[in-house]
């Protein structure tokens, strides 16, 4: 293998005045951009900035309305994703495109099966797959069924698939959104190796600005379908990037921390959940924002689900304002004014093909009349929540699937606010949400706490826990292994506890 040097930047991809019109909007507007061979090029922008449309044009899913694209010196005119693959362009989507019931090798060579006398040659495919995976430093067996793999390993399979078709340009759309810190680091090692040793060019799309700055040689910012600026990571900080994305000064990302009241609202004791939680508990005070940190798999979500009655617990007790609360089903949690806003809003949080009104009032339909529901009251309530949360929609009768990630998250929040909770457990409330919407959600959480509601916030993004929470609990292996004061915690403190390098039994 030879090492590629980027002494002489030579463009592999040139985008020249590209415009893409949809019936209702101009998604990309006269955009020009050059990507150099062998570089990792970050692409950032708010939802709706045109990143995905641009990537769809590069991967053959859409065709530009105007303008031209040149790849490796030749004009790029793609009719399908298969065309893009033939030209050496591969895209790894946020939702992985693997078939869970098939083996790793079958997935890697899907559509390009190696055959002998018309029969699929499993052996040769498995050997080839093993070689590719080894090059990526992975020890996954090519025979494993893909749905038995972790998300991180599935991503490696996708990368192996891209390599198997000799991809020279690899587009990655938010690959780390569902990865833990350790998995992210492993992925970055693979990406850097691809870049330096195989000369693969990477276009990297992400909302997580520190990661983009760490991985990429150059970063391009898009806004409202237009090119804004290309910068080098060392010239800018996160705040600069955020300002470029939003087009104005965001001010402080986190609201001023306010003191909470001393009385205990929620007391969780000695929770055990089979396979996940081994004796966890905490106290939550009125108006407090309590962070719950931990690696993916530490049992955070399972703990929260058990508290909210979504998941069965083996033992453990909950008391709310001093009274024991026997929460066994989600309906019990609502009756006790406790709400759990789930992670993974598409699967668990929302009914995507139902309207905003339908979603907003679903968990609280009892409040809208019996036997007949009052349609006007439901609509009014959905409108009121949309107004308060700043949900951007044309009408509340719109399907939730037509909203952006940030606005969908606001509908998920609205559904639970409609049950008038005293205690809110928010599981990854800002995942896959752009920076503007993030700031709005932080403001909202702060405001809810100021109204005297108590909040537990689960997050993998340590800066937001540090910026927002009064206290941060760290979970590891199903136990609370430490409690840190929000204003003095550092990412290193949290990581040490989460990874088990230090114990600090305070909680």
């Amino acid at each position, binding site marked *: 293998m030879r090492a590629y040097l980027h002494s002489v930047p030579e463009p592999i991809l040139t985008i020249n005045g590209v415009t893409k019109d949809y019936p209702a909007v101009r998604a990309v507007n006269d955009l020009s951009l050059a990507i150099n061979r062998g570089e990792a090029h970050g692409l950032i922008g708010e939802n*709706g900035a045109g990143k995905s449309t641009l990537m769809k044009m590069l991967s053959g899913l859409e065709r530009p309305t105007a303008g031209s694209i040149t790849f490796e010196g030749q004009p790029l005119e793609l009719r399908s994703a298969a065309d893009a693959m033939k030209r050496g362009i591969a895209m790894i989507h946020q939702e992985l495109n693997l078939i869970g019931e098939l083996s790793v090798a079958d997935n890697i060579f899907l559509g390009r099966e190696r055959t002998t006398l018309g029969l699929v040659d499993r052996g040769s495919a498995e050997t080839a797959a093993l070689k590719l995976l080894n090059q990526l430093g992975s020890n996954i067996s090519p025979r494993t069924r893909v749905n038995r793999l972790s998300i991180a390993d599935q991503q490696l399979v996708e990368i192996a698939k891209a390599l198997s078709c000799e991809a020279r340009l690899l587009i990655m759309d938010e690959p780390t959104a569902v990865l833990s810190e350790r998995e992210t680091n492993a992925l970055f090692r693979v990406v850097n190796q691809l870049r330096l040793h195989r000369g693969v060019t990477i276009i990297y799309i992400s909302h997580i600005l520190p990661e983009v700055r760490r991985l990429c040689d150059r970063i391009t910012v898009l806004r409202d379908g237009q090119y804004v600026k290309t910068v080098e990571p060392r010239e800018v900080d996160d705040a600069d990037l955020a300002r470029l994305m939003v087009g104005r000064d965001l001010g402080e990302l986190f609201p001023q921390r306010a003191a909470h009241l001393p009385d205990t609202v929620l007391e969780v004791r000695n929770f055990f959940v089979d396979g996940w939680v081994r004796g966890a508990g905490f106290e939550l005070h009125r108006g407090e924002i309590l962070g719950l940190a931990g690696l993916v798999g530490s049992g955070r979500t399972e703990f929260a689900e058990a508290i909210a009655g979504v998941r069965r617990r083996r033992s453990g007790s909950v008391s709310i304002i001093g009274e024991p609360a026997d929460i066994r089903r989600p309906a019990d949690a609502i009756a006790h004014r406790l709400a759990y806003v789930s992670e993974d809003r598409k699967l668990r949080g929302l*009914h995507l093909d139902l309207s905003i009104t339908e979603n907003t009032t679903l968990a609280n339909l009892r409040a809208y009349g019996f036997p007949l529901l009052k349609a006007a009251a439901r609509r009014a309530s959905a409108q009121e929540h949309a107004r308060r949360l700043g949900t*951007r929609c*044309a009408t509340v009768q719109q399907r939730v699937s037509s909203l952006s990630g940030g606005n969908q998250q606001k509908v998920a929040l609205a559904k639970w606010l409609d049950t008038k909770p005293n205690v809110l457990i928010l599981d990854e409330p800002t995942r896959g949400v752009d920076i503007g919407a993030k700031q709005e959600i932080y403001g909202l959480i702060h405001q809810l706490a100021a109204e005297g509601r108590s909040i537990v916030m689960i997050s993998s993004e340590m800066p937001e826990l540090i910026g927002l929470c009064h206290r941060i609990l760290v979970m590891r292996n199903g136990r609370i292994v430490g409690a840190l004061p929000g204003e003095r915690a550092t990412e290193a403190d949290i990581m040490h506890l989460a990874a088990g390098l230090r114990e600090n039994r305070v909680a």
Partner: protein
Amino acid sequence: MIQDKPNTPSAPRFHWSDVFETWGGLIALVIMAAVCSLLPATRDSFLNPENILNIINQKAFLGIVAIGMTFVIISGGIDLSVGSMIAFVGGLAVVLMKKIIDSSGTEWLGVLAACAIAPLAGMVLGWITGLIVSKGRVAPFIATLCGLAAYRSAVLVLMDGGGESAFGVSSFEAISSTNNGIPLLNWTDATGREIALHLTWPIIVFISIAVLGQVLLSHTRFGRYVVAVGSNETAARYSAINVDRVRLITYTLIGLCTGIAAVLLASRLSGIDSSNTGILLELDAIAAVVIGGTRLSGGRGRIWGTVIGVLILGMIDNVLILASVSTHWQGLVTAGVILLAVLLQRSRSE
């Protein structure tokens, strides 16, 4: 706080496919009716009150079952057992009625018992199916396939392979008689005979159940839960909806509908034939639901659509008979209409 961004989405744009998605079934019905009223072969015989009432009356039994089926399908389930169930609970009712009349000699007591037992038995059987599906975690297709086999077998055993006639039990036969119900108008038919047209009991029950069903689906908590469960079961469970109970109720509901239809059908046929009654009813019911624009995978649907689906199926049968086309063509025409209706109503987003 952040002010409104310029990219606030505008109101959804107009698309013809949206119109068809919502109104496709109705449009198809109107077109078919128009064609039938213009074709020389059916011009005179199709569009008159007697024939229209006849179509609805013929399909009222199917319609009642199809309304129950709409709830089951919207919730993400399916029920293949209704054809056998209608024969079994109808048979049960007729056998019981005859026994009571024979032993007590009072006809009204037997008729009353028949009218009570069929809906009740239907509900119980539906409830059991619901338990198997929700608590037993058996796929609805499999659970109700077992019902299809079991109830048919049960009615064959009950009647020893034959039938049980209600012939001569006049007050039972009167229930579905075309000379009973709400008088509408006097009509002179093609032969010059003057007859009094009635809104028959099957039609009245069908319309009532359709109205109740639409209200239940659109305007009550249970109805919204049915949609939520069919659209995304996991999210429904996280939203504190008792998914098992919603499922249980939908199957109990279709059982009840089937039981009510069984009484009306037994009255109309003057009895139940253990080997023939209700054969393929489940497929007609599913066809009506799908023609009506309800998504077979659940999460979206409407009762009034199903009513239109039932009318379309009734119209196909009727027109082929009026035009003296061999009934052998019926399946081909039905298949074409189902495909056309479903193609028209495809959603843009799918």
